Each structure stands twice: as C-alpha cells, then as structure tokens.
C-alpha cells in the first residue's frame, strides 16, 4: 500500500468519524427539539387562559369562566396519599430484599422477578385491577382513595427498585462496623443503613410521585371522568388534573383546547419542579464511598 492511499484512507476514516458523531448528536437533539417544541406550543396556546380563573374556578361549559381548582386539589391529595402509602411499603420491601432475604432461595428470586415485571406492566392494566377490585369488588366506589391506592400499586415497583439501589450502595464495612460494636440486625438497618440511604430513597420517591401525578389512563378507568365542581374529599368522587386535561382536549371547541394547554402548563410546572428537586437532591447528598 502506498503512502498516498494510506493517507486518503485515514482521511476517509476521520470524515466517517465526524459524520458518525454528527449523527449521534442529531439523535440526542431530536428528543430535546421535540420537548422544546412541545413546551413552546403549549405556552403559546395556553398562556391566555393561564390565570387565577384557572386556579380558583371549577369546570364549566363556558370556557371563559372554567377552571381546574377541584382537579388541581385532587391531584395534590392524590400525591400526599400516594407518598404516605408508597414510601413505607416500598422501603420495607427493599429492606427485606436487601438485608433479610436470602437471595439464592427461589421464593425471593421469584419476588425479585415479580417486581421487575410489575414495573413494566402497562398502567391501563392497573386501571383494570382498580376497576375490578377496588371500585366494584370492594365496593369502594369511584372515590379518590381508590385512585390513590391504584397509583400506589402502579409506582410501588419503581420506588422499591430505587430504594434497593440506595440501600445496596451503602458499603458493607459500615454494617460490619456496627455489628462489631454489638448492634442487632435491626439496629444496623435502622440506625446505619437507612439514614445513609435516605437521599437515594427520597430521589426515587419524588420521581415516582412525578410520574404518578401525570398518570391518566388508570384514573379514567376507575371513573375519575365525572364533572366535579366542588372540592374533593378522600372518600368522594373526584377528577384529577391530567384527567381534566384529557376531557378538555377531547372537546371540539378550540377554546377548550387552549384551556387544556393552560392546565398542561400547571401540570408541567408540577412535574418539572419535582424532577428538578429530585436531581438537586441527588447531586447535593449523593455520597461517594
């Protein structure tokens, strides 16, 4: 091979490399461009209706006085209940799997596989579960509590997986040190492992909350579609913010679509704040051992 052909070959390789990097950058950019377009579009359409009427009024057939107060309140209630239910059960499961269970025995392996699979079950299937068991089976009816319970089951696997990772990241030297000082297993877990894992658990729980407050399909199925103009109660009928958005988007009147865009701004602010909080928490308290 002559020196000249070698150098053209190398040059071609350099160009190929540049084109490849360009394509990689492009594939990252498409997602961000889509997100940017979405945000600009929603802001353009929704800002006109993004006002105090939206936050303080109930729904109405007149788009100019319609608001989303009951829906926003219900979403806040759902979020609070969700955290109350999910965090203890999720962290409990994670502690059991990481600290107590023998990973080589088949029931525990099955438990792990089960949780991994549940994390990927479509949300609408959880809606069917809620419809069959909570609403009709238990006779709870189409109430906010049923919605909170279904969302809890939906995000529980995510919280468990995040909590397990946080617990696993605590080095075993800390556990062994505590045992050497005569601590019992529960003392080790509750006074050493859990405090060290709190930032990771909190990050995972906040991300789960962000996902849950945007969930629509399971709530539609358990009947959060009704026209609600009063403030929600835990045992009463309800509609949530994403369901309200769905309802307004479906209506043919363009004014309602603009109203939906305004409600989307509210929902996106909530979701983005939660995500930002989770990222901040992760960066601020992440420990490197």
């Amino acid at each position, binding site marked *: 091979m002559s020196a000249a052909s070698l150098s053209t070959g190398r040059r071609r*390789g350099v160009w*190929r*490399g540049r084109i*490849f990097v360009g*394509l*990689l950058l492009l*594939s*990252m950019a*498409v*997602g*961000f461009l*889509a*997100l940017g377009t*979405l945000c600009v579009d*929603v802001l353009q359409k929704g800002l006109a209706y993004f006002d105090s009427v939206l936050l303080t009024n109930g729904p109405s057939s007149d788009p100019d006085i319609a608001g989303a107060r009951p829906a926003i309140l219900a979403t806040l209630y759902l979020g609070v209940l969700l955290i109350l239910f999910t965090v203890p*059960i999720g*962290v*409990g*499961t994670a502690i*059991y*799997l990481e600290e*107590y*269970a023998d990973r080589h025995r088949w029931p525990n392996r099955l438990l792990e*596989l*089960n949780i*991994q*699979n549940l994390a990927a*079950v*479509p949300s*609408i*299937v959880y*809606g*069917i*579960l809620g*419809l*069959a*068991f909570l609403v*009709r089976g238990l006779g709870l009816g189409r109430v906010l509590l049923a919605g909170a319970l279904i969302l809890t*089951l939906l995000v*529980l696997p995510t919280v*468990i997986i995040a909590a397990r990772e946080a617990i696993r990241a605590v080095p075993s030297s800390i556990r062994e040190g505590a045992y050497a000082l005569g601590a019992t297993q*529960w003392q080790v877990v509750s006074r050493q492992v859990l405090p060290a894992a709190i930032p990771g658990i909190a990050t995972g729980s906040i*991300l789960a909350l962000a*996902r849950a407050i*945007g*969930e*629509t*399909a399971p709530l*539609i*199925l358990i009947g959060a579609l009704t026209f609600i103009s009063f403030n929600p109660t835990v045992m009463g009928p309800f509609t949530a913010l994403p369901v309200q*958005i*769905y309802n307004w*988007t*479906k209506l043919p009147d363009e004014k309602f*679509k603009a109203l939906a*865009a305004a409600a*989307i701004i509210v929902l*996106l602010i909530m*979701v983005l704040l939660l*995500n930002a909080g989770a990222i901040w928490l992760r960066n601020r308290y992440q420990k490197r051992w």
Partner: protein
Amino acid sequence: MIKGALFGCALVSVATTVGIVIALFLPAFEFFQEVSFLDYITGTEWAPLFLQASFGVIPLIVGTISVTIWASLIAIPLGLGSAIFLSEYARPRVRATLKPALELLAGVPTVVYGYFALTWVTPHLKDLGLGVGVFNALSAGLVMGVMIIPTVASLSEDAMSAVPRDLRYGAYALGSSKLQVSTRIVVPAAVSGIVAAFVLGISRAIGETMIVLLAAGQQPTLSFDPRQAVETMSAFIAATGAGDVPTGSTEYKTIFAVGATLFVMTLILNFFSIRLVRKYREVYE
C-alpha cells in the same frame, strides 16, 4: 417480628400480581364462555357494541402493532444513537447533565404527549401533504417514539457502560478509530442489553394508552395505513371502561378479555427483556 413486617411489605407486590391475574382472567374466562376463543383470536371484525356484535380481536392487534412500528422506528435508532453518544463520546460532566435531561422526555405525562400529537403533530403532518386524518396512527406513533427514547437510551447505555474497558483498549491498541471501537466492539459486546432495551421500549409502546386514545382515534380497522385512524387494545379498554357499561354484560367483559390479551403480550416481552439483561450482567459483572 421485624422481618415478618418487612416480608408483609414485600407481599404487597405479590398480592398485586395475583390481583391482576384474577381481575383479568376470571372475567375473561366468563367472556370466553359466551364468545368462542377461536372467533376472538382469529376474527377480523371488532364491533362489540353492535346489535350483531362481533368480537374478532385482530383489528385491535393490527392497530396496536401499526402504532408500535412507528414508535419503534423513532425510538430505536434515536435511543441507540443517544446511548452510544452518552456512553462512548460524552465526557463524564456532559453525561451527568445530559442523561437526566433526556430522562425528562420520559417524565412528561402521556396525556400531554397526546395533546401534542393531536394539536401540533397531526396538523403539521397535514401541512406536509401526507393526507392524514384528524386521528391517525402515524402521529401517535411518532410522538410515542419520542416518549420511549429515554427507555431505550438509558438501558442501552447501562449495557454499554458495563463492557470492560480492556476490550476498548485492546481495540485501540490494534489501531481502531473511536467509530470502530463503538460500532464493532462496544455495541456487539453489549448486544443482549441493547436488545433488552428495544424489547422493553416496544413493550411500553404496546401498553401506552393516552397518546393513542387522543391522537389515533377509536376506529377498529384492519389496515396498516398510517394515515388512517386505528383503535389499539389499550385505547379500547380506556374508552369502554370510561363509559357506563353495565357490570356483568358481555361488553363489560370485553374490557377484561382485551386486557388479558394485552397483559400476556407485554408479559412475554418483559420476561424476554429481563432474561437478556441478566445475561449481560452474568457476563460482565
């Protein structure tokens, strides 16, 4: 005592799975006593609410696959490209910023994507002269693809990061370029994890509801034409469940039959994906 309480927490997940199976399959079983299973699984007409009701699920499956194909065409190449960039090209600091930013795409509520597909993407596809209807499979599929990019990217990136550095250094020592190392060493070495990411992404697409409910329509059609309205399994379940169908009627039970079909399809994909992830973990970790 404490171990018992913790085990009780773990049982909630088991109870959830058992609950899902009972909630889906018991009514589905009753449904198949009224409608023959063979007619259901091979029938090409879906019209459960007609006087002359017909329960062939094929149109719903075709609708689901049609949307999923378009979502995959977006999510698989873009997700893989993003993963290669993050794992092989981005500096640690850049990766630490870009990865959570990309995850935001998966954090946007699906109803918001549905709104975007219906009110922005579809009109723009129309402007392009594609002749799409108000509801169409293409718009829903494209937007769903964007939503799934982080799922594909994040799992693929994990798999590529797990490839030992030695393999890369070996290839560099033989005079490979970065492009060659990425495409001929890292991607093949991480292939089981990457395929797992694709499969999980597809499973997400099959089960996604709000985007298709808003943008793809509710018209069971036996066609892969992306410009037409279709009805997916998930959209049918949501639309029927939201209406006031009397409990115990055959129409009510269709929710569970279709739900069971959807559950089984995603279950197979999920197990396949979980197995593949275990495989690469066994090799490299």
